[in-house]
């Protein structure tokens, strides 16, 4: 696999992660099973005339994209690739409500325009005046990773390009609540920090955006090298163990040389065994880090893991709130990411310091 460097990154989540100078120094303790992002001042990044039509996901996406480009020093990307599991749910809901309440009459254009899954990619491009390749992937909990694979393929052919890759998902009033009914979200509010001890089914839900600038060329702004990434639609926990070992083997890496693993445990007793099986076997001698007790879960929550990896390399430390076992790495040069949702959309990625 050709080289792929993360040369810029930004994140907006339920924690104050949008400030590039902070690394989970202050933690917001959420007490609900559905909670919102901690917002930066969007007016600093989006003109008022443009922002008045934007739902939360568009604001988060456009702002995170702007921040990521700034951190990379790239003004105009050669491609914009976004991933979202559920798209612009807020405006989709409003559009559907209007159809319902106005008896399928008087439909206005704004909500329809803003309700498509590729709205964020389009708005980022409009803001930049970027007419380059622009694609959005909707692949459940592997939407962000699928976008990364597309970027990786593009860079394998044209390494000099700068590809802006993002993942965005938002909470919406009604459609998010539906996931309480089907058991994906816990029925009762909990202290989210204690998510992994909940002992119940379902998880907690939130929203956020991560954008990265990828290139085949290392720069002085490079945060990490993305060695490789793989997605698996469906696998058993036994199969996942073998797949991760094969993945590492292909990179010429053993678990001994992985300094930390970043895992997507989300407190759902129905599916966290996928992680626990690894945590007590091939990951047992490796520092284990989890993050969904801070930011909740949503289809592109795994993009937070990439932000974490980059920040760990940048700061050369791990905030203690992330640690879930007693093993402490002596250095942070190689980080493995693993995520799944409901036993599907597994993703594995390997990051290295560069």
């Amino acid at each position, binding site marked *: 696999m050709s080289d792929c460097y993360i040369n810029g990154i930004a994140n907006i989540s339920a924690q104050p992660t949008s400030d590039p100078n902070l690394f989970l120094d202050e933690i917001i303790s959420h007490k609900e099973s559905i909670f919102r992002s901690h917002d930066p001042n969007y007016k600093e990044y989006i003109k*008022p*005339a443009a922002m*008045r*039509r934007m739902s939360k996901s568009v604001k988060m996406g456009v702002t995170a994209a702007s921040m990521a480009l700034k951190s990379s020093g790239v003004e105009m990307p050669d491609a914009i690739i976004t991933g979202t599991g559920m798209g612009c749910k807020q405006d989709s809901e409003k559009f559907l409500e209007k159809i319902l309440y106005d008896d399928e009459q*008087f*439909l*206005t*254009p704004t909500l329809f*325009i803003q309700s498509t899954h590729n709205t964020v990619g389009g708005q980022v491009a409009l803001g930049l005046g970027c007419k380059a390749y622009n694609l959005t992937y909707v692949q459940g909990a592997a939407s962000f990773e699928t976008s990364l694979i597309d970027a990786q393929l593009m860079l394998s052919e044209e390494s000099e390009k700068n590809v802006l890759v993002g993942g965005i998902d938002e909470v919406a009033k009604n459609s998010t609540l539906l996931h309480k009914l089907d058991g994906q979200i816990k029925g009762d509010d909990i202290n989210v920090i204690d998510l992994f001890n909940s002992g119940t089914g379902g998880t907690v839900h939130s929203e956020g955006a991560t954008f990265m600038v990828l290139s085949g060329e290392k720069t002085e702004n490079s945060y990490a090298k993305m060695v490789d990434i793989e997605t698996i639609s469906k696998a058993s926990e036994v199969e996942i163990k073998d797949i991760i070992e094969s993945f590492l083997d292909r990179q010429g890496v053993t678990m001994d040389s992985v300094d930390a693993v970043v895992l997507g445990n989300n407190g759902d007793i129905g599916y966290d065994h996928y992680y626990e099986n690894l945590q007590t076997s091939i990951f047992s001698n490796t520092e284990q880090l989890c993050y969904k007790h801070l930011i909740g879960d949503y289809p592109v929550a795994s993009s937070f893991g990439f932000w974490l990896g980059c920040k760990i390399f940048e700061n050369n430390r791990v905030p203690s709130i992330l640690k879930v076992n007693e093993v402490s790495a002596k250095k942070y040069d190689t980080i493995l990411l693993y995520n799944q949702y409901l036993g599907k959309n597994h993703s594995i990625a390997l990051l290295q310091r560069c």
Partner: protein
Amino acid sequence: MAELKEELKEKIIEQLSLEDVEVSEIGDDDPLFGDGLGLDSIDALELIVLLEKDYGIKLKDPKEGKAIFESIKVMADYISKHRTK
């Protein structure tokens, strides 16, 4: 007529999500598009729907909107003459 103008200003602010604009900031003769309120072509479509939904006025030719939506005063005049509800 004054009441209709105020009502229009409130509806425009709400329908077009002009969150930072107050009713008192919109003059009766201020241009709604361009240098005035700064509305754009998508807003024009929203206003066409607003005319039909709230006042029962269906524009046969969307290009008519350019003259009708010149200002709050012109819009209120047109509505008062053509409204069916």
